[in-house]
């Protein structure tokens, strides 16, 4: 048996650990176009400071030898012949028995009308280092896009002493979360801390003027020295475009992380999976999904039988002094019940979204302790009709759940309880 993994991110690492939990011996080959060991993308911002790449490694350097994985780093997959089970690289081919595609996602970089200079992006080490290098003699940076990466990057650049203009097309940052209150709190926080935040602002074009850039907005023109585009990511499916692999928003996988082609699995940002809350296939590019999907794929590739947990968006982040965790669906439909709690003094906000008695989304700002208890209620599709007020207003408490519910939860997570 020869396993081949394309990619070296969280999904790939999960797959290695999944395979090795079943199969200690067979050959594993890992191919990645980046010439470095696996690193944590959520920590990528640190690359802008003096920190070196070791500080954001996702596993230690011995990981590959310990797990008996041969790595081919710095080489790019061009295409796959799924019938012959052969991977085509620029100057080489690799045969596989079982394949995992974990190529992740790449940055959306919109073309700016009239601009022939560099538009930076921020989704991998190369991009981060390129940006870092260019920052040396630049002070005024425009960040395009108010999603997670745009906001966090703006914060980092601001803390490095740069003058940051964050340009967002919607009414607030993190608008894709679908919660206006959160956007509003974060807008205020970002402005208060000194980032120049331009909301509801579209970019018409840009022009290079000597070493500066003139950014043309609908109402005004602004001058900056560098543009970083953080307009989201899209699955990296280019090697598979002309193949029979089923791709929609991403590579379509079932709850065993199988694609439509035999012996071919996919995991992580490159996939689309069934999202039980949305009742449809979605691309959810977050690290827990990547690792979890990879781990599940690894078990199934090596003869085990693992089913992926229900997947939905979730994130834990700190934006300046606002600590928050969001889980599930926050943009409610009409049929949903939404309850919120806001304490402006303590800067605490909590929101629960309930559909037919079941919790389907939760947001915690300020006090995030024990958020996982709520997350598990979402995951297990538990009825919260009787306890919703307590879940909203009290400190999160496991014992708020009825005893039978608690016992089921405990049982489901542990093995062999006597």
């Amino acid at each position, binding site marked *: 048996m020869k396993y081949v993994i394309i990619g070296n991110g969280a999904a790939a690492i999960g797959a290695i650990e999944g395979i090795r939990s079943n199969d200690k011996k067979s050959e594993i080959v890992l191919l990645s176009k980046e010439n470095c060991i696996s690193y944590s993308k959520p920590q990528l911002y640190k690359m802008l400071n003096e920190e070196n790449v070791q500080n954001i490694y996702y596993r230690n350097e011995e990981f590959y030898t310990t797990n008996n994985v041969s790595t081919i780093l710095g080489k790019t997959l061009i295409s796959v012949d799924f019938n012959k089970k052969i991977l085509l690289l620029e100057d080489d081919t690799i045969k596989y028995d079982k394949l995992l595609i974990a190529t992740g996602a790449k940055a959306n970089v919109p073309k700016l009308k009239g601009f022939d200079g560099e538009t930076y992006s921020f989704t991998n080490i190369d991009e981060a280092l390129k940006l870092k290098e260019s920052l040396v003699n630049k002070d005024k940076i425009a960040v395009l896009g108010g999603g997670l990466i745009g906001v966090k990057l703006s914060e980092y650049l601001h803390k490095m002493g740069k003058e940051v203009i964050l340009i967002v097309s919607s009414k607030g940052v993190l608008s894709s979360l679908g919660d206006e209150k959160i956007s509003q709190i974060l807008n205020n926080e970002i402005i208060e801390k000194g980032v120049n935040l331009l909301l509801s602002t579209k970019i018409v074009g840009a022009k290079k003027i000597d070493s500066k850039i003139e950014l043309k907005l609908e109402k005004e023109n602004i001058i900056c020295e560098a543009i970083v585009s953080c307009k989201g990511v899209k699955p990296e499916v280019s090697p598979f475009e002309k193949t029979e692999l089923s791709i929609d928003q991403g590579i379509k996988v079932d709850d065993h992380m199988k694609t439509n082609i035999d012996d071919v699995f996919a995991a992580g940002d490159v996939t689309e999976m069934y999202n039980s809350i949305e009742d449809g296939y979605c691309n959810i590019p977050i690290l*827990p999904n990547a690792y979890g999907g990879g781990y599940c794929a690894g078990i199934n590739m090596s003869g085990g039988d693992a089913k992926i947990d229900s997947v939905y968006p979730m994130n834990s982040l700190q934006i300046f002094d606002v600590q928050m965790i969001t889980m599930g669906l926050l943009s409610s439909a009409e049929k949903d019940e939404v309850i919120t709690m806001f304490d402006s003094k303590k800067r605490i906000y909590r929101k629960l979204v309930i559909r037919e008695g079941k919790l389907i989304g939760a947001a915690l700002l300020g006090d995030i302790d024990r958020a996982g208890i709520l997350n598990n209620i979402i995951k297990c599709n538990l009825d919260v009709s009787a306890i919703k007020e307590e879940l909203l207003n009290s400190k*999160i408490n496991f*014992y708020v759940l009825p005893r039978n519910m608690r016992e089921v939860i405990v049982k489901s997570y542990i093995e062999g309880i006597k």
Partner: protein
Amino acid sequence: MKRRIICNEDFCIGCRLCEVHCNVKHSKSRDIILAYKYEKEKEPSRMTFEQKEQVCGSIVCMNCKDPLCIKACSMGAIKIEDGTVIIDTDRCVGCWMCVMVCPFGAIKRGDKKAFKCDHCHDEEVPICVLNCPNKALMYEAD
């Protein structure tokens, strides 16, 4: 082998000694008086006591079969060692992804680092279990 501390809520009277002894065990002096009266930098207990009306109990890391915290950790800082889920504090950066997923709320936030019950891996029986006056806390190893 998996170590596990389970609370039988029928016997828990809410004395919170488990929290006290957990604190002492993880204090500098390991002395109950010194730890409580004189040590300034005290971590919160790794054990969480909770109550809802008559029902109460304590809860810690359950050493899940397939720990969600390991999958969510953005730094690969959580692993299983000798049957216990361990947080490598050198690697932990306090992203709180583990807090986001732990179904028992058993991972706590310290100063930029997560921490949790270590099941007193250097003791034969965890200290909280030893000191539970009503034997509500039970220790299992399988």
